[in-house]
């Protein structure tokens, strides 16, 4: 099979263009990070500056809106791609959520900061496992970084923990 250098160059350009188009799809998954980043930003701002009894006024609507937007985005993405490990990931998060609730009841965290640390580390652990299942190194690195930041924040700068 003979391919001229010009044909080789044209083929490589085609490959790059196609992969750039596909990356735009993959980039849509970044909207999940934006949605939940905003939810957590607003919630943690509330944790930091609102009285403890009023914190739920921020978290409840923010998380509800976050779930609705995630569902809409998920349905849209599901029409384009799906992962063969999707059901396994869903089952894992159900099991993780149940485990977390059980431990929350057993441990009875002493303060809201411990509540926040526990909930956030559970979700971050979940994200890390998804990264391992999907072999997504960026997700693994991101969740490791967030876990380190959380622990450092909790122990070294507790006054600014929620920020």
């Amino acid at each position, binding site marked *: 099979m003979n391919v001229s250098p010009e044909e080789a160059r044209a083929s490589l350009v*085609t*490959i790059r263009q*196609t992969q750039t188009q596909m990356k735009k799809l993959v980039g849509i998954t970044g909207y999940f990070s934006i949605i939940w980043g905003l939810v957590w930003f607003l919630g943690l701002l509330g944790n930091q500056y609102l009285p403890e009894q009023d914190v739920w006024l921020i978290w409840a609507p923010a998380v509800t809106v976050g779930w609705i937007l995630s569902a809409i985005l998920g349905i849209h993405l599901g029409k*384009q791609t799906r*992962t063969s*490990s999707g059901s396994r990931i869903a089952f894992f998060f159900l099991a993780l959520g149940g485990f977390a609730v059980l431990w929350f009841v057993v441990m009875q965290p002493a303060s809201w900061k411990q509540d926040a640390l526990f909930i956030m580390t559970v979700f971050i652990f979940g994200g890390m496992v998804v990264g391992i299942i999907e072999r*997504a190194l960026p997700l693994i690195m991101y969740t490791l970084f967030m876990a380190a930041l959380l622990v450092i924040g909790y122990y070294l700068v507790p006054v600014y923990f929620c920020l």
Partner: protein
Amino acid sequence: MASLNEVIHQPVRLRIMAALASLGKETQASFNYLKDVLELTDGNLGAHLRKLEEPGYIEITKTFVNNKPHTYVQATSAGRQAFREHVAALEEILNGNQTGLNGHQREENDPHGSQSEGSS
């Protein structure tokens, strides 16, 4: 040295493999999404997918969602490997051409040089 893959080199199939190889290993693209991204007709895409399925480069899964048929396509490990080798071969041709161009330019400057090399 990597070798070109005749099955993958066809322009439409090259774009299909490029698209599928850019997705995660566990990720499947829907037939309709591939059709939209690659701007192909149903028949055209279907024919090329069958060509890629024969040597085991892709896996086609047909399911029903709300009683509607859905088709998903995924690159196999063999397909990803074959695609990588094909890209490497293309790059070798391109890099080889840069050396070849220098040689060709030398011949242009000294048209008799190639004849004397040929005669020896």
